[in-house]
């Protein structure tokens, strides 16, 4: 079965277990400015303990927060023809790709994982904002189609964590074509009666919102995420007015009817577990049998504090 590219053992990928990470690694909260130790960051799933600001989280870290016992397999994604336009601005596109690959240690801006969430086989796709702002190009299109195909094959629900500035300009029209292309995948899930849950995270804008990110059966957003078609600066330039406080933020979209709910990252696993089990017509998850709260975190805190 060659679609399994690697098998991630529990905690093996976790930063906590990496001996080479120094204790004095600190992150500044982008919202309140407090300094947060990296161990606290991991325990809080990159949410500021002081102000609840939801910071960027990598796909692998995200998977760790979702899957039972943190066990999941990554789906192999077919790599498209690289740099189809031979695009060059002030830098070559291939150089931008290389540097993003170096920083993230990933091939491109989306990872797809398969595992159990509350003992229910689930496919989770997550976009990587650190990789060229999560932008959607051919690779992301391939990842979405691969995720959908896998869902169809094993009859599993799809949960997609979206974050992107939009389409990847360096792939020109082919990035725009990922809007209809990804929609094809989502459409096939719908035809098969399989649930598709979208989680919009900060930020999700442009062609991504105008395609797969707005076609979910259920739309969840993390608190205060920026979600919209046009970016706020473009809108301000167009209407020549200052935008109201909270415009295009999750809570605002909820009020305007574009979302079903806003969910804190610490409650995401439980929310998804309940939704997927209901939609897949499975009996409720049993407390005690399935880890609901972040037990694993508590274990870790005793280890690290």
């Amino acid at each position: 079965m060659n679609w399994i590219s690697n098998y991630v053992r529990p905690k093996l990928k976790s930063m906590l277990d990496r001996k080479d990470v120094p204790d004095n690694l600190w992150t500044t909260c982008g919202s309140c400015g407090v300094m947060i130790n990296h161990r606290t960051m991991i325990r809080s799933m990159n949410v500021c303990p002081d102000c609840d600001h939801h910071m960027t989280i990598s796909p692998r870290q995200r998977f760790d927060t979702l899957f039972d016992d943190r066990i999941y397999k990554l789906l192999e994604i077919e790599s498209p023809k690289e740099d189809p336009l031979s695009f060059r601005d002030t830098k070559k596109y291939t150089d931008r790709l290389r540097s993003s690959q170096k920083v993230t240690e990933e091939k491109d801006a989306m990872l797809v994982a398969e595992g159990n969430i509350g003992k229910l086989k689930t496919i989770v796709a997550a976009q990587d904002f650190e990789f060229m702002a999560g932008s959607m190009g051919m690779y992301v299109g391939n990842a979405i189609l691969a995720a959908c195909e896998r869902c169809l094959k094993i009859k599993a629900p799809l949960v997609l964590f979206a974050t992107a500035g939009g389409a990847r300009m360096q792939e020109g029209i082919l990035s725009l074509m990922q809007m209809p292309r990804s929609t094809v995948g989502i459409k096939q899930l719908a035809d098969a009666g399989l649930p598709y849950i979208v989680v919009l995270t900060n930020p999700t804008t442009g062609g991504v919102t105008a395609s797969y990110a707005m076609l979910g059966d259920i739309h969840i957003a993390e608190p205060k995420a920026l979600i919209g078609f046009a970016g706020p600066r473009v809108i301000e330039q167009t209407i020549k007015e200052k935008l109201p406080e909270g415009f295009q933020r999750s809570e605002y979209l909820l009020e305007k009817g574009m979302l079903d709910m806003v969910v804190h990252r610490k409650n995401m696993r439980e929310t998804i577990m309940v939704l997927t089990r209901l939609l897949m017509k499975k009996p409720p998850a049993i407390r005690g049998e399935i880890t609901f709260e972040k037990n694993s975190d508590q274990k870790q805190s005793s280890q690290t504090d």
Partner: protein
Amino acid sequence: MKHYLDFEKPIADLDVQISELMATPDFDKNEGLQASRKRLSDRVDKQLKEIYKKLTPWQKCQVARHPDRPHYKDYVNALFTECTLLAGDRNFSDDQAVLGYLARFDDRPVIVIGQEKGHDTKSRLVHNFGMARPEGYRKAIRLMEMADKFKMPIITVVDTPGAYPGLGAEERGQSEAIARTIEKSFEIGVPVISIIIGEGGSGGAVALATADRNLMLENAIYSVISPEGCASILWKNAEMMGSAANALKLTANDMKKFGVVDKVVSEPIGGAHRDPQQMYKSLRTALRSTLKEIGQKRPDTLRRDRIEKFKNMGNLEEKKPSKRRVKIL
């Protein structure tokens, strides 16, 4: 008043000379004057041919946005009969940036949906420069459903700088409206033919261009972002739009190469705005043959082929010959 782009300026003087000649009182009877006119016209054609042969991508962007270029409504009036405007999304308002018609093409009733930019200050404001709000896309969805119900082919006409980036548009779900339009395009069982006549601007364009067959006029453009927008983000300087237009590969020929467009429709010498009648004629021919090609296909076949087309979009590798399983007896 005619508009001349910078690189069309050499033509402007000749055009003035021609109209002065033709305004001479005895022009109709004076063979000498008529011969001069002919000479001047030939010079214009020759120069235009030269200029248009080597247009840069940025110059093509300017032609695509040329104020004298025929717009959606001009094509509707020229190509269809019994054009009946259908208004509203049945929900919030009637978006004037997207106009829908029930009309006839040759003998066949069709639904026409397109973006109108307007041709002067007043009409541009009415049509919001061709920038649709969510209601425009929701009107398109409504008309697609109607076409599906009555088994009528859909012809979409794309000409937009992009979807409108406004406060109300965001509040009412611009992205959802575009996403649902694309989704709807995969559900309908009637032929969908899309024509990019000018500017195919980003998500606002692709919403109306998810079609069985994509046609594009020779000097039209299709892009994920405007060259100005791309230049200001990647070059941090909007003045670099020339370089951005080059890099983005947004011309009709590029689209053909990428397989995004099926047919490039030639424009008259000097672009569609120099001879709209000729332009309508060529487009009518192209539309007729395209409709002949797919107009009788069954709903399931259309849907299946459309899904395959977009699924494979961007697979630039040489198509591998499909592995045929030979049954050995």
